[in-house]
């Protein structure tokens, strides 16, 4: 066993597990991510399994299968909901197994007798209704969650990569370097972030990666400031002095000695950063400056719900999803903080 966990880390993990609220939130959150990764099998307008004329088809992943494959009279992608009714009516040998929610995030459910939005209905399998264009709300919620969560994690990685390196350097080297970056941060923090995002999105259509880049451009400040303070404190400790006396280089001192001692701070802030990343993307999408339509997104759904108040199920669904996600993330954060920095009090009464 080369990779034995540090006993202190083991103790922290044990403490985290003892905080029920955070521990359960952690598992719920992991499950949500796992489910969203398998979203194509659960929420999709492609069938999971088709049995047609003695052969099995798995249309979920891979190239779209044209309608002719199943004896339908068109070459574009098969409409599996239609195929299901078609085969069930006895016009062909076989059957179709649809996902629990048989709608994709982009497929519109148009009807001849009514206009969307449609209220939630179990018989239509629109469990949370449809939006104003007739797309299934649940499908857009699920795929929107997947985009939001990975956006947020990507943003977290970018922010922390910049913030931790600059913050460490500021705290470690201090002096002019520190003073210069303090001014830079003061300027940066005052820049109207939205202004730059709107300007950029008016020039180019923001893609996933570009939006992360723009937001990381402004998001690194918070963690930088914290890391600066922590490094500043660590630097004056005796072990750093000892390493310096032994002749360790700056790089070695920062990477081998100071960084491991600041991990607690990084880990403590991470869950809250994930929550704020989700909120930021949702806000931008709500305003129409986030990822371009028709990308499924919570913000865009909220915008629709706000504009069509009578379609109460849209707002209710998104707010419900946001509450579950953000509250679990916040509880995880609270528990992590508690595990890394337990406060035991003795009070005399």
């Amino acid at each position, binding site marked *: 066993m080369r990779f034995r966990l540090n006993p202190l880390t083991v103790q922290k993990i044990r403490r985290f597990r003892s905080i029920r609220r955070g521990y359960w939130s952690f598992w719920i959150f992991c499950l949500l991510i796992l489910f969203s990764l398998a979203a194509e099998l659960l929420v999709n307008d492609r069938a999971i399994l088709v049995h047609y004329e003695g052969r099995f088809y798995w249309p979920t992943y891979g190239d779209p299968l044209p309608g002719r494959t199943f004896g339908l009279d068109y070459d574009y992608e098969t409409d599996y909901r239609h195929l299901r009714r078609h085969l069930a009516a006895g016009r062909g040998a076989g059957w179709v197994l649809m996902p629990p929610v048989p709608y994709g995030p982009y497929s519109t459910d148009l009807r001849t007798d009514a206009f969307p939005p449609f209220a939630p209905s179990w018989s239509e399998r629109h469990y949370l209704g449809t939006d104003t264009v007739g797309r299934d709300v649940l499908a857009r919620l699920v795929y929107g969650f997947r985009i939001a969560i990975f956006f947020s994690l990507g943003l977290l990685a970018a922010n922390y990569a910049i913030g931790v390196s600059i913050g460490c350097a500021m705290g470690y080297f201090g002096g002019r370097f520190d003073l210069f970056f303090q001014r830079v941060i003061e300027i940066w923090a*005052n820049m109207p972030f939205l202004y730059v995002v709107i300007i950029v999105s008016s020039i180019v259509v923001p893609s996933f990666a570009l939006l992360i880049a723009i937001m990381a451009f402004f998001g690194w400040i918070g963690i930088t400031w914290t890391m600066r303070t922590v490094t500043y404190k660590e630097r004056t400790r005796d072990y750093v002095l000892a390493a310096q006396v032994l002749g360790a280089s700056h790089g070695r001192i920062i990477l081998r000695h100071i960084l491991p001692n600041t991990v607690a701070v990084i880990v403590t802030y991470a869950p809250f950063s994930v929550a704020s990343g989700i909120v930021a993307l949702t806000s931008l999408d709500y305003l129409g400056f986030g990822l371009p339509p028709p990308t499924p997104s919570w913000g865009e759904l909220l915008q629709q719900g706000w504009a069509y108040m009578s379609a109460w199920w849209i707002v209710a669904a*998104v707010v419900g999803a946001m509450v579950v996600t953000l509250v679990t993330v916040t509880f995880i954060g609270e528990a992590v903080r508690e595990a890394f920095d337990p406060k035991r009090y003795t009070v005399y009464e």
Partner: protein
Amino acid sequence: MAAYFIRRLLLVIPTLIGITVMVFVITRLVPGGPIERIILESRQMQSQAGGLAAGPAEQKQPLSEAQIAELRTYYGFDKPVFVSYLHWLSQVVRGDLGTSTRYYDPVWQMIAQRIPVSLYFGILTLILVYGVCIPLGIAKALRHQSGFDNLTSVAVFIGYAIPGWVVGVLLLMLFASVWEIFPLGELVSEDFPDFSAARKVLDLLWHTALPLTAYVCGSFAVMTLLMKNTLMDNLAADYVRTAVAKGLPFRRAVFRHALRNSLIPIATSFGNNVSVIVSGSFLIEKVFNINGMGLLGYESVVERDYPVVLGILVISAVLFLIGNILSDLCVAVVDPRVQFE
């Protein structure tokens, strides 16, 4: 200490110049300014007037070169960036924030009109946040790990997790659309000027309830927990133990000794409250359709109304930087141990 604050105040100047230079340069580099807007508008007018008769070549450029050059001079786009920045800066130093390129009103007047709305919500929020957080924090500290403590923690964290404007959308849907108890946004009713004084107050409060809830619901968590944690730190400190040991009742020890020291961290952010003058979340204001500072800033950004963008930026940056210094001053006032060098 005076030297410290003078140094801090002087450092505001380079920061302010840095911020405005960056935004000023961006406004120059980016397409979609007032000239493009005027060209677009006159093109629309031309196509409405001329209909199909106008040829494609004419439609392409409705204004002559001379007209465009005139516009560029009018908006100051003919000079190099640096020169027009200095021009703008010299105006700002003399207290003139320029004229909106969209509405042609003085920027200062546009901002001044919105300040009462921001102040109204800002001060109400402040009163509610301090009024709830400090007593709640004390109560939670005294009943640490009780059912009450856990329950309020969960409530406060749920409020903290969900952004205020999303709460606003939910409140609007529930109370304005489904149950129709509160109005669908705006700050006053349409025939507000005709109301009697008492009715005006009621109308204003009726319109305030939902947005104010959206404003405050997220702001309880940080301060309540700060209050709770510092009070608990102090309760475990030796001087409180001494006070209790010499026979002081526990309540007196808490309120006479521990509480006073626990208010110090709360004071560290008190100075930043000067920003309420221009505060206002544009998202909440957009959801509730309230014409406050936030919405003004947002609309000026969307419409590329550069003088307004820069004007708001200057005011809010100055208030923010001064707020930081005031916070330091507050700390020095409440805690004599703090020495700024």
